[in-house]
Each structure stands twice: as structure tokens, then as C-alpha cells.
């Protein structure tokens, strides 16, 4: 008797007992499921009895069907989420949405102008601060890092930072900036976002710089150019598209981040341009509005969610399109 056969028999006995117990405990559905499992155990035992070639073909078909199903599932989830966003959010998007500030609870109308502005400013500042750090650090890893013992360590640490939970970064900035200055501020929020930008830009810069062919550099060196000039005028220029794509991806990443802003910039009901003040921003506003029972606020939350998603997806698609046509040497 084959091993599978004996397993099937053993399983049948166990499951029959379970099925009887389930009926005893009045779970008809449980008995049905036990019955199905018994059937499955026998089917897989009998599977073995098939002649080899049909069996292999059958196995193949089952697996392929499952992987079609898996991909279909993934795509369906994407479609569902986007459909929900569009269905719920489109109703909120109007001229008012872009021109009015967030309303008080219980009011009708209003928009997300202050949140959009605050998010845009903090993203801009965070990117402006984080990108140069990231680019220069990436340059170090690519251009000066070979043979240097510290470079692999920095690469490793960079990947840790890349995947670190963003809420931890928020806590860090709370301790570092909010408690020291004594108040929440847009600056603190931007600082948290900058820390999130740096690892992304380091990673993409290093990858892009490594892709620049050595012949370009050698040609420049052969003309007597100092190293820094080679990097800045030749290598950077060759990799510029890729590096900008990296910055774009970083922007896409921080636009949707909520957790780091929860304890740094918090949110603001009113319009403000003062970075020293609590800065309104889309993600935290969506967080507050979505969790409230106020129907108007929920509508605005969906609208904001649609806006963020469209922006981020757009940036990602743009980045993809730009890198697909990349070439080096002009």
C-alpha cells in the first residue's frame, strides 16, 4: 500500500470522528467541511494511481490555473481599490475642494486647500533637504566607495533606514525637534520626511552612477580633469535622468506617509503658511476625517485619498517611463 493511501485512510478515520463530533455539537457546516477534506485526501491518494504522463500534465494544469488565479487576484485588488477611490472620491473633487480650507465638524462644503498646500510645502522642503544629502552620499558609495571598508556598512545601514517603520522616524523627530522647540511645526514634519527621502535617493543615485560606463569617465580623466569635475560634469550629467527619477520616487514615497507627521506637524484646521505653526497636511487630515462619523468629512477624506493616489501613481508611472528609455553618453 502506498504511503499516500495510508495517509488517506488515517485522515479519513480522524476526520470521520471530527465530523461525528461536529454533528454532535450541531455544526452541520463543520461536518460538511470534514467530509470535503476526506474527499480531498482520497483524491490525492488516487492521484498517484494515474499513469505518469497524464498525472504530470494534470499537476501542471492545476498549478498554472492557480498562478493565473493569483495574478488575477492581485490585479483585481488593484482594480477594486482604484474603483473604490474613484467612486467615493470623485464626488468630493470640485472647484471648492481646491480652493477652500478644511471645514469645521458638522459643516457642509469646504475643501482641502490648506492640507494640499501644507503637504506640498513639507514635501518640497523634505525633498530639498534630503536629496542633496542622498545624492552626495550615493556619490560617495559609487565613486569613492570601492575598496573602502566603510562603504558596505553604509549600504547596509541605508537599507535598514529604507525599510525602517516610519512611525519610529516620527518618534525620533518628536524627541529631537518638537520637544526642544516646545511646539509642533511644519519644520519638524519636513525633517521627518527628509529622513525618509535620504535612503531612497542614496539607493537610486548609487545604482544610476554605477551604470555610467567607465569609458566616459576615463575619457574625461584623460583630458586632465580633476576627479570632482569628472563626477559633476560628466557622470552626473550622464546619470541625471536616473537620479531625477530617484528623487521623483522619493517624493512619491513621502507624499503618502502619515505616521511620521502624526507627532511632528500634526494638522491644522485653518489655512496657514507659517512653517513654525502646526502644518495642515493631507495624510493626517484624511486619517482624522475618515475615522469620524461626519459624512461631509468622510467625503473630503475620500477626495484627498484619490488626489494622493493619483499623484503618487502618476509619479511612479512617469518614473518608469523615463527610466525605460535611458541611455548613456550623449
Amino acid at each position, binding site marked *: 500500500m502506498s504511503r499516500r493511501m495510508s495517509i488517506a485512510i488515517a485522515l479519513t478515520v480522524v476526520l470521520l470522528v*471530527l465530523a461525528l*463530533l461536529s454533528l454532535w*455539537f450541531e*455544526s452541520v*457546516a463543520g461536518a460538511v*467541511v*470534514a467530509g470535503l477534506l476526506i474527499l480531498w485526501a482520497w483524491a490525492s491518494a488516487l492521484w498517484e494511481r494515474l499513469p505518469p504522463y497524464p498525472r*504530470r500534465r494534470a499537476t*501542471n494544469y492545476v498549478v*498554472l490555473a492557480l*498562478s*493565473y488565479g*493569483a*495574478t488575477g487576484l*492581485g*490585479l483585481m485588488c*488593484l482594480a477594486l*481599490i482604484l474603483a473604490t477611490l474613484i467612486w467615493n472620491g470623485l464626488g468630493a473633487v470640485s472647484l471648492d475642494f481646491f480652493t477652500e480650507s478644511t471645514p469645521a465638524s458638522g459643516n457642509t462644503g469646504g475643501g482641502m486647500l490648506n492640507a494640499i498646500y501644507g503637504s506640498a510645502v513639507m514635501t518640497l522642503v523634505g525633498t530639498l533637504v534630503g536629496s*542633496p*544629502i542622498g545624492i*552626495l*552620499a550615493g556619490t*560617495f*558609495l559609487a*565613486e*569613492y*566607495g570601492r575598496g573602502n571598508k566603510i*562603504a558596505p556598512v553604509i549600504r*547596509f*545601514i*541605508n537599507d*535598514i*533606514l529604507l*525599510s525602517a*517603520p*516610519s*512611525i*519610529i522616524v516620527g*518618534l525620533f523627530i518628536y524627541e*529631537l525637534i518638537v520637544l526642544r522647540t516646545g511646539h509642533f511645526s511644519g519644520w519638524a514634519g519636513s525633517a521627518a520626511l527628509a*529622513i525618509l527621502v535620504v535612503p531612497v535617493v542614496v539607493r537610486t543615485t548609487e545604482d544610476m552612477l*554605477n551604470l555610467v560606463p567607465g569609458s566616459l*569617465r*576615463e575619457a574625461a580623466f584623460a583630458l586632465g580633469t*580633476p*576627479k*570632482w569635475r569628472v563626477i*559633476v560634469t560628466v557622470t552626473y550629467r550622464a546619470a541625471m535622468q536616473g537620479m531625477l527619477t530617484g528623487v521623483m520616487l522619493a517624493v512619491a514615497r513621502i507624499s*503618502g506617509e*502619515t505616521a511620521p507627521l*502624526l507627532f511632528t506637524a500634526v494638522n491644522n484646521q485653518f489655512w496657514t503658511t507659517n512653517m513654525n505653526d502646526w502644518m495642515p497636511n493631507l*495624510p493626517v487630515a484624511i*486619517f482624522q476625517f*475618515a475615522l469620524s462619523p461626519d459624512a461631509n468629512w468622510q467625503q473630503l477624506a475620500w477626495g484627498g*485619498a484619490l488626489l*494622493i493616489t493619483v499623484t*503618487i*501613481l502618476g509619479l*511612479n*508611472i512617469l518614473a518608469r517611463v523615463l527610466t525605460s528609455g535611458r541611455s548613456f553618453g550623449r
Partner: protein
Amino acid sequence: MADVALNRSAESPRSAWFDGVFKAATWFFAVAILVILGAIIVSLLISALPAIGRFGFGFFVSTAWNPVKEDFGALPAIYGTLITSFFAMLIGIPVMFGVALYITELCPRWLKRPIGTMIELLAAIPSIIYGIWGLFVFAPWFQSGIEPWIIDTFGGIPLVGALFNAPPLGIGYFTAGLILAIMVLPFMASVTRDVFETVPTMLKESAYGIGATTWEVMWNIVLPTTRIGVIGAVMLGLGRALGETMAVTFVIGNAHQLNLPVLMPGTSISATLANEFAEATTVMYRSSLFYLGLILFVITFIVLAIAKTLLIRLQQRAGG
């Protein structure tokens, strides 16, 4: 290739001096990354010290969470983090294989790029969107359609039933795990796909040549070759799932209890931090939250370190 050894001094001494400045600047910012991480760890440690002093390692096994009596325990939060990530992996790994298999072997050429892009677009959706989608769309559907069926079916079975006996809330460990699965799927699938594509075509063609089915090629050739990379991809997904905050906060139910039924609500470390940080009035409360954050950071660190080591080993193998 990048570091051609022609470090020739330039035409003028001023340029040569700037060479040193530039190199120093890049070095400075590279080291800054180390400093940032170090600062984060140190800051977490310092803030967590009072709690570490008071609770020590008992923190890991205590289920108390009483801000009034200042008695805190991490077990419900750690359990919630681990079990939601477990569900995310349970559901995500098979789907990851399915997607990677489809894209590398089954997909027509012209469809490869678009489908790959679409799966990666799932990664671009910010986590708060997953949170509100989970709460407003998925949870009600789950609560009215699927959950009662699960509870009726499996709740009655002796032994196993205890895992399913719960009021149908729609939110809880399982829902959070499901949402996390959808979130980490794109990372894992695209890394797995990249890893599958490193398998030399020659190997696969030889297997096809002697009549192997697609599945047999996958199982006997591709997977053994890419074993390390696949594990690395899984670890990356796991790292992401462990630290995810917003998606989990919306659908896990915020109950500081250790519940056995998988459909019950609970809490995770990041959800606890997001919910309670703003109102931690006392030093011990705040310190306990930082202690939780430190634990999360350490767990993520370990998982990521393992993933990186595995991926480096794969690269070394592929390189030669």
C-alpha cells in the same frame, strides 16, 4: 569601473584642493546616514530606559496595559504584530509565487511589462489608502458575507473551533493580515520575479527540451537555484509587514488584549504607538511606548539583516 585610479592632480592647485573638499563632503554625508541611524537607536534607547529599568524582560510576557496603575506589558502588541505578519505571509507567499510564475513563464511577451507595472502600482498606493479601503469596503463585506460563514463552519469544530469563536466584527487580526498581504505582495512578487529571471535560460530550456512541464521546471530547476533570493524577498516583505502602521491601525480593532480567536480584535506595536503616543501623560507611559518602539525596531532590524545577507549571497553566486 567607477573608481578609475587616475586621481591626477588638476591643472591648478585650487582644483586639487577642491577635489579633497568634494571627497570629504561626500564622505561626510555618507557617514551622516550612519549617524542618523545611530541617533535614532540611541534616542529610542534613552527614552525607553525608565521602562526597561522598571519592567526589564518581564515586559515581553506581561499582558497588562494599565496607564492608570502604570503597569505595562508588550505581549498583546508583540503578538498582534507577529500574528498579522504571519497571516500576511501565509496568504502572500503563495500568491507571490503564483504571480512571479505567471509573469516569468506564462505571460505573453507583450503583456509582461504592463502586468509587472500594475502589480508594482499596488506598492505605490499609500498605506493610509489601504487602511480606509480596509475599514470602509473590505471589513463590512467581510463581516456580513464571509465571517458568519467562517464562524458557523469552523466555530463548531471541537479543538480547532476555539480559533474561530468570535462575534463577527469585520475587523481583527485576520482582516489586518489580509490587508497586509495585499500590501506586501507587490514587493515580494517583483523581487521574486527579478530573482526568477536570473536563472540562465539554458538551464530552463534544457529541462523543457527533455519534456518537463512548466511546473516541473519551476519546481526542480528555478526554485532550487533561486532559493536564497526567494527567501530574501520573503524577508523583505516580512520586514515591511512588521512595521506597517496606518493600514493596521484602521482594521485591527485597538483592543489591548491577547485574543486567541483569529477573528478577534487586538493591537500591534505600531498601532499602539499611533493611537496612544499623543496622550502618554506620564514618564513611565511614554517610556513604555518607546520601549515598544525599540522592540519593533530590533525585530525589523533582525529580519532585514537576514534578508540582506541572503540577497548578498545570491548576488555573489550569480556573479561567479
